[in-house]
């Protein structure tokens, strides 16, 4: 049994109801799927279990729902846990894991900036990549991709 | 000692006589053609007689001769040397960095080949004009570019002090060259000059005020911090510089640069009799070990060399204008030729510092030479100015070498080195000199 199965077994034993699904992706990576309300307990448990590095937080807009995907690594055990937290589309709010991993700081700000998911409990949830007065969250699927290009071409047609 | 090559006084006399004559002829030609005016009747010869007499008085001729001499000295001492040193530095560090460096020279001007008469001489220049030169004219081109640029004054700057500071810095630096001798005859303050070294130090110490004022008046945070740092650094390195100078003065017993150089020209056995095996001044042309202060006061030399390096704000000590953090330090807001002035004067301070180092420690303009057998003249070769410039350029090259192979150090480290390392060594050097004199080892 590899280390991934070990971690998977631990998580399943600790959170039997909360895990919607869990699978081993590669010998050193597992994926678990949870609801947004179970994120903080899981995060705290992982942190206590030696997962000290928050690699990445990705926000995905699946039109019917949002997902906040956490890649959490343990350097010592050399295993990665991918947590997929599901968020309803009409209420894009999830707990912040800033208190658990400070490295989540900029990732959560970026996800708020580009995807519009609000991370409750983040100390400084401001736009980071886009200007402060920008009004949209451009990575959402309802943000049209071609707007700017049309705008530019119209401006060019107009002679300016 | 060598004779004068040109006597300026008769030269100026002849020049003035020529101008007077020319003016008289023109006046005669113009006024003589108009009848009835009568200011210059034909044949009177000298229409402006009284004026010509004034111009011919020895007083005026002497003044003009002096002005010409001073101009030549200042021009050669500063402007030409400035260009040469900049060129040397740029070429030298380019070689350190494994590249060729600047190449704009006379050969880069391909229009020379198009001049009909001279065309044949310069045909080769056309092919790759910018890749053939020596690079000497690059600095001239940079200077011309600087002159063409606009002189901006920042909106909230304190205009009076902002404009006064470069003048203060430039004039105080030029003052150094009034007392810095290049040879026995080459100086504005003539030999003997009992306080020459003191005068140079006084002129050296004027610049920090200008730098501080420049940094403050630009109303910019970078310049303010740069000015503060610069002043703190220059002040704290002036103290070891003067202390190490005292060690030399104790040995030499004088503040006169001419006297200091003459004493260093003697063999070392004349001062320390125990070292007579190193040779003594015997027959003319004999090679002997000179009495340079670098041998007898080495700690002082070390301290002085490092202090001069800091006075030039060269790279290990270039925190005042550390470009990575403070953009360009205290001269950030200057533009155009005003920038060129304060920037270029760093090299002049380098020249003055290296010159001072050579005079104090490396025997000044003395060195082995032969007397050229010219009719009516006794010219020494290599003449004194050549010896001096060779030494100064070598010292300057050493500084360039150091500054392009070290990173800059932090301001607190700089001040620590100044106060905790250099000042104790300088005090030790003074103590050593006094001991050498007190026990009669050094006469």
């Amino acid at each position: 049994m590899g280390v991934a199965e070990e971690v998977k077994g631990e998580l399943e034993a600790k959170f039997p109801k909360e895990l919607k699904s869990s699978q081993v992706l590669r010998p050193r990576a597992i994926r678990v799927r949870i609801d947004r309300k179970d994120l903080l307990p899981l995060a705290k448990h992982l942190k206590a279990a030696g997962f000290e590095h928050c690699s990445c937080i990705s926000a995905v807009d699946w039109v019917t729902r949002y997902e906040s995907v956490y890649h959490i690594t343990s350097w010592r055990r050399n295993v990665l846990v991918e947590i997929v937290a599901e968020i309803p589309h009409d209420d894009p709010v999830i707990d912040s894991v800033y208190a658990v991993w400070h490295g989540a700081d900029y990732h959560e700000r970026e996800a708020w900036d580009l995807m519009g998911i609000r991370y409750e409990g983040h100390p400084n949830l401001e736009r980071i990549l886009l200007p402060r007065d920008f009004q949209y969250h451009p990575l959402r699927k309802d943000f049209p991709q071609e707007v700017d290009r049309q705008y530019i071409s119209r401006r060019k047609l107009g002679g300016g | 000692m060598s004779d004068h090559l040109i006597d300026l006084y008769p030269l100026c006399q002849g020049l003035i006589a020529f101008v007077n004559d020319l003016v008289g002829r023109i006046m005669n030609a113009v006024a003589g053609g108009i009848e009835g005016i009568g200011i210059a009747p034909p044949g009177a010869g000298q229409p402006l007689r009284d004026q010509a007499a004034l111009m011919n008085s020895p007083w005026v001729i002497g003044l003009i001769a002096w002005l010409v001499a001073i101009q030549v000295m200042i021009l050669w001492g500063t402007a030409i040397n400035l260009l040469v040193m900049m060129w040397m530095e740029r070429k030298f560090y380019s070689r350190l960095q494994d590249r060729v460096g600047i190449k704009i020279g006379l050969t880069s001007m391909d229009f020379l080949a198009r001049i009909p008469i001279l065309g044949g001489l310069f045909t080769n220049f056309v092919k790759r004009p910018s890749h053939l030169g020596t690079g000497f004219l690059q600095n001239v081109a940079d200077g011309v570019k600087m002159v063409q640029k606009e002189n901006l004054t920042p909106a909230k700057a304190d205009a009076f002090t902002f404009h006064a500071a470069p003048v203060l810095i430039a004039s105080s630096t030029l003052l150094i060259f009034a007392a810095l001798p290049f040879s026995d005859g080459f100086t504005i303050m003539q030999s003997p000059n009992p306080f020459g070294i003191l005068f140079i130090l006084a002129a050296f110490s004027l610049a920090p005020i200008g730098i501080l004022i420049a940094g403050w008046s630009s109303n910019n945070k970078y310049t303010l911090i740069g000015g503060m740092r610069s002043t703190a650094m220059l002040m704290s390195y002036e103290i070891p510089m003067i202390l190490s100078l005292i060690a030399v003065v104790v040995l030499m017993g004088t503040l006169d640069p001419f006297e200091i150089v003459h004493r260093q020209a003697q063999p070392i056995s004349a001062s320390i009799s125990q070292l007579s095996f190193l040779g003594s001044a015997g027959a003319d042309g004999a090679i002997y070990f000179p009495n340079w202060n670098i041998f007898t006061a080495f700690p002082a030399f070390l301290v002085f060399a490092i202090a001069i390096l800091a006075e030039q704000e060269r790279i290990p000590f270039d925190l005042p204008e550390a470009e990575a953090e403070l953009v360009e330090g205290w001269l950030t807001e200057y533009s155009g030729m005003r920038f060129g002035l304060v920037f270029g004067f760093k090299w002049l301070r380098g020249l003055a510092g290296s010159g001072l180092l050579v005079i104090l420690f490396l025997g000044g303009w003395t060195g082995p030479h032969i007397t050229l057998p010219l009719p009516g003249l006794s010219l020494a070769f290599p003449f004194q100015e050549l010896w001096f410039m060779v030494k100064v350029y070598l010292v300057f090259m050493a500084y360039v070498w150091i500054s392009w192979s070290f990173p800059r150090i932090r301001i607190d480290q700089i001040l620590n080195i100044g106060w905790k390392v250099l000042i104790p060594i300088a005090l030790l050097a003074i103590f050593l000199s006094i001991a050498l004199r007190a026990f009669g080892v050094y006469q």
Partner: protein
Amino acid sequence: MEWDLVAFIAFSTLELVAAVLVVTSKRLVHSVFWLAVTLATIGGIYVLLRAEFIGLVQIIVYAGAVPILFLFGIMLTRRKIMEEPHEAE
């Protein structure tokens, strides 16, 4: 004409004017500048009085001392030393 006298008058006039300006200047740096001019002209007067050594030492010491005075002036007075654009609002 006595050139010494002319130089003395020039130096002392400059010194007096600069000394007055030290006191009347509103801005710190202007006072410091005029103070430096005052002290340097005093050095010049020493030179005129055939006390070259004292004159040059005067310039070395005071040219060194004035920036330190200025630094203390900046450090110890709690006045704003820069024109902050946003403070005008």
